[in-house]
């Protein structure tokens, strides 16, 4: 897997941190994040993002193998499922907190399993981290759905804490088999 071009790679600094301890740190970060989501502690989850955050989930199209570059329309070119800056995400959270966000009243039961972490460092305080996830959602009486996908995060260290500056969620689905996407990944 390559997250960077050769050119970018040249500027990558890798010496500043012990790769194993960085991997441990970030793994812990993602495990904690998953528990925050599944325990519905959305404010604390939201606090993991930077001020200039972007939360992006593109469409995923059926295209021939040789046109693979068209499979996932890049940010700023298409109508994605999520393209939230901090304000738009704040709207979502206030909605959930209102007691009248009916899609989540009663709330979904989710289970996020996040793994397969790989990291490429960009600078001392910025890394790109990629994870795979499976998310099970159950709601009301018998509704259930399974989401699988990847997340590519630009993480930034602010006040010695890692924060998510840019998240791209790519689902392994074309037509989404869920009534609505009122949960987070």
């Amino acid at each position: 897997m390559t997250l960077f071009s050769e050119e970018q790679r040249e500027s990558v600094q890798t010496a500043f941190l012990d790769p194993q301890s960085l991997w441990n740190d970030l793994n812990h970060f993602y495990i904690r994040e998953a528990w925050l989501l599944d325990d519905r502690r959305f404010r604390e989850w939201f606090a993991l993002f930077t001020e200039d955050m972007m939360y992006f989930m593109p469409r995923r199209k059926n295209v021939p193998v040789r046109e693979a570059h068209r499979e996932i329309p890049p940010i700023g070119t298409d109508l994605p499922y999520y393209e939230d800056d901090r304000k738009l995400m704040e709207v979502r959270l206030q909605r959930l907190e209102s007691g009248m966000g009916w899609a989540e009243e009663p709330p979904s039961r989710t289970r996020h399993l996040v793994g397969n972490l790989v990291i490429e460092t960009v600078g001392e305080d910025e890394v790109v981290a990629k994870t795979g996830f499976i998310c099970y959602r159950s709601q009301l009486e018998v509704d259930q759905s399974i989401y699988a996908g990847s997340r590519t995060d630009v993480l930034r260290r602010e006040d010695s804490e890692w924060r998510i500056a840019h998240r791209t969620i790519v689902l392994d689905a074309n037509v989404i088999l869920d009534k609505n996407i009122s949960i987070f990944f």
Partner: protein
Amino acid sequence: MTITTTSTKKYKILDPETGALDPRIYSDETIYREEMEKVFGRSWLLIGHESLVPNPGDFFHTYMGEEPVILTRDRQGGLNAMLNVCRHRGARLTRTDDGNCASFMCVYHGWTYGLDGALEYVPGEEQAYDNKLDKTKLGLRRARVETYAGLIFATWAPDAPSLEDFLGDARWYLDTEYKRRPAGFIAYGPQKWIQPVNWKTSVDNCSDWYHVPTTHSSASNALARVMGATRYTHEWNWTVPAKHAFVNGHQIAVFETTGHEAPAEEVERLGEFRANNVAASASSIFPNTVLGMRLAIPRGPLQTEFWHFALVPADATEEEKRVLRMEHASQNGAAGTFEADDIDNWRQVSNSGATFIGAQQEQLLNMGLGNAGPHDVYPGMVTDRFVSEHNQRAFYLRYQEFMNAGSWADISLEPQTAVYEGTTAEM
């Protein structure tokens, strides 16, 4: 080979005097099967937008009801809608969502069709078929295609009226949105997802502003607080200067922008009155389109695949387009804060007649009975009350008319009386 209508059953779905609606129209399997023929087999159906297939060779895979359809732009620049079913054994000719190509090769045995659906090549025409295959008679099944302001419609029915007559004077209103600016719109998307609802619920809901202060209070309040957006309260509903208009089963929310001074170019395009005073908003086009723009694609009585596009003015700056798309994704579509709260309502409405006792309880669409009629200025049937169930009644009566018709000869079209001022008067 012709499969003809099997049922001449006459439905009484809605009582126009009382507004009582038979809830079995959502969940009954037999009714659903009949809809596929009598509504989706007959009506003009929105299948895409010109911006999805701008260049020769472009194609976009779409649906007309349940039928898979390839929409193409051919070498002459013409639009074609063809059933995506091979004339040999019925495999699909393309399995991708969109693209650009010179022809469609069936990956089962290799029959190859042109951009207009003509059968161009068959492997072993001589060796396997002894040159006895009449390729000219084996093109893909084509639908009629017509466009309005970049929106592409198709119908299977040879006896359907023109799209112009089908839309009727709904066009007088739609022009104020879709023809206001010369550059037109670009369609982004679609998002695609499947809801456990009957397709009709989401269309009739399009003009139901009564539900907004309750269903969408959380999204509306949060948007008002965070973004300074309008708060959709009951009070707003009762006092907003707006009407609803109904033509041929289509519905248009009409905001009266009295006092607005449109740019000279818009006045030239729409005439003074429409440019300054009329702004069409959320509209539904019979049977399964909500502008703009989304399709409710039937997938069984209690399943609907939604295709949600964002229509964005083509002459907006890149930054404006981006903001519009972000707001779109945030509020509507699969992850939309408004949309998410609709779905369980629609599902429960859809299911309400599926049980023995439930089927005995009619739904009540009597709000604002008697409040719609002809208007001096506005074409079609018009209701001054922004909140009413006239649209639901108009929609289900139109649906009933389609379900009870033997052919298009039995389906009425309202007389076109509107005067189309401005340079965009032509369809």
